[in-house]
């Protein structure tokens, strides 16, 4: 597999694509993946088809995307894939994720368990996380180590969230696309990095993304508000240093992370759904902890798949906040360890296996480095 990751920060989408085409030179490609800034939202499919004369592509919005070591803003980053052996890629998409699509999507994954799947999803008003977890319950094979992905990231313009996924002549604003790679080996790393602190709490009252009560009816919001003690003008993002770790009931390991998005007197709200009855721990990290974990996970991942040909990084936008001015360091660790091009973006949520590879999980504040190599 030959890959190239290119970027352009031209002021129009057309000019950006023309520049990317020029940089691509005469290299053949089988498939293109574009991470495009939400500043571009007009005639995306038409422009890609006009410049590259293909339908073998997907594009999605990303506020910050990765071109090798660089974090690009207000630009277009493109991953061009050229298979040199028997590699293939196909697309499966759901235009508007609904309950009736859960079975269809899980059947697709169950019937294609020999392939490696990259999911590019829309936030879909927060429905994506429960959709993924419902799919996970229907997956009938183990280990679940052949799926990874992320939720595209957009921004609000005049009260409208600009966040779309594009392919062929479709614009998916409530759906997802699965790219299924055939004859490609892949390995997914799960880099958390937050250290768990203290005892385990049981969620005794939760609804959607909110925790109301823990243990025997204690107000969780009261406890979380204590994190702001002696901090002037508290910003909710300060709590991104302290996500919670959801514990797997059966095997007692960390199965997912949840980042706080809001606190009221009654409840603590997270960026993804919360299941009543689950247990969790508080956690904390600085950029040093996260980068150390990235390095450890990168080394473990390459041991399982040496000499990869490309790396993708799905890294949470809240993790970017904790990484502070070191947000490019994560990509540097991956490109150095994997010695490949790197493509990716800061996501609104990451999709990947849990650390034990028992199920598919929707994460917050995680980095999922994915390395691939054609058979």
């Amino acid at each position, binding site marked *: 597999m030959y890959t190239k990751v290119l970027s352009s920060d031209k002021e129009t989408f057309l000019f950006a694509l023309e520049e990317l085409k020029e940089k691509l030179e005469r290299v053949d490609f089988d498939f293109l993946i574009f991470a495009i800034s939400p500043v571009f939202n007009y005639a995306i499919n038409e422009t890609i088809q006009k410049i590259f004369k293909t339908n073998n592509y997907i594009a999605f919005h990303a506020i910050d995307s990765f071109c090798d070591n660089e974090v690009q803003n207000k630009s277009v980053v493109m991953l061009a894939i050229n298979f040199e052996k028997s590699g293939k890629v196909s697309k499966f998409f759901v235009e508007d994720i609904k309950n009736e699509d859960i079975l269809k999507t899980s059947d697709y994954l169950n019937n294609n368990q020999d392939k490696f799947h990259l999911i590019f999803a829309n936030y879909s008003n927060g429905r994506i996380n429960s959709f993924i977890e419902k799919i996970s319950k229907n997956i009938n094979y183990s280990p679940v180590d052949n799926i990874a992905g992320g939720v595209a990231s957009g921004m609000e313009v005049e009260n409208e969230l600009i966040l779309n996924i594009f392919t062929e002549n479709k614009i998916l604003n409530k759906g997802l696309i699965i790219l299924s790679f055939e004859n490609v080996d892949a390995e997914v790393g799960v880099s958390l990095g937050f250290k768990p602190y203290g005892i385990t709490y049981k969620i005794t009252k939760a609804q959607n993304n909110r925790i109301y009560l823990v243990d025997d009816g204690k107000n969780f919001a009261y406890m979380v508000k*204590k*994190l702001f*003690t*002696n*901090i002037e003008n508290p910003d909710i993002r*300060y709590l991104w240093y*302290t996500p919670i770790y959801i514990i797997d009931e059966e095997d007692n390991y960390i199965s997912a992370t949840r980042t706080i998005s809001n606190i009221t007197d009654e409840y603590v709200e997270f960026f993804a759904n919360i299941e009543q009855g689950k247990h969790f721990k508080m956690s904390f990290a600085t950029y040093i902890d996260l980068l150390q974990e990235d390095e450890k996970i990168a080394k473990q991942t390459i041991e399982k798949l040496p000499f990869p040909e490309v790396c993708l990084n799905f890294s949470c936008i809240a993790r970017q906040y904790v990484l*502070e001015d070191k947000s490019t360091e994560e990509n540097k660790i991956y490109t150095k360890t994997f010695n490949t091009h790197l493509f990716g973006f800061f996501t609104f949520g990451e999709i990947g296996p849990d650390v034990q590879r028992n199920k598919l999980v929707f994460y917050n504040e995680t980095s999922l480095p994915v390395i691939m190599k054609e058979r």
Partner: protein
Amino acid sequence: MREQIKIRILQNLLTIVTQKYDYFTSYQETLIEENFQKAIKDPLTGLYNRAYLEEVGINLLDEAKRENLVVALVFIDLNNFKAVNDIYGHEKGDEVLKGVAKELKNSFRHYDIIARFGGDEFGIIAPSISTPEEALEQAQNLLNEIQKPIKINLNTVHITSSIGISLYPINGNEAKELFKKAEVALYKAKEIGKNKAMLFDEKMYQEILEKIEIKKEFVNVIENKEFVLYLQPKIDIKENKVADFETLIR
């Protein structure tokens, strides 16, 4: 800046996770205290409510009996407050009430119990007052303070008040009795003219009791349908015919 925040967050996290039960205990205590405060206080002014004043009144009198103290019970009613609400609206009316509450807090000692009974009525149990003269002097100062002009928007509003006072042990030994007598004194103060303060005396009580008795009798007669309506004709002598009727109830 970010470094300091991170350190604070970590410190707070460590405090929470290592003292989980202390935090929850203090949370429960805070909750109990908050509920208690809600139960005993007037939410608008932050003064105590009537129920609390009555309860404290009983305890304070027990204490006063043991220590041979004098305790004053002061009732205050604002005279033209309804007009303020009607003209300027309830929001401005609430501001006036808050202002009066503040004035009461300034005028009395910290150990005096000040309450709002609801509407424009206030009550104070004042162990700081030890003689009838002191009580009247304090009341007069209060009348002067309350009647000072208040600015609402671009208008100046004058509010006056009436004050009734009863004293333990001069006017009675039981809290209920003293409450009733302070109310009687307040009624009398309003009757003789606005912006007046009255100390309770027995003569006042008899007058009021008579009025109350008359009122009671009226109520009984109405309930028993003992009133009879009489129409007495008025005769026009020149015309020699009924010109009108005089209506009488006997």
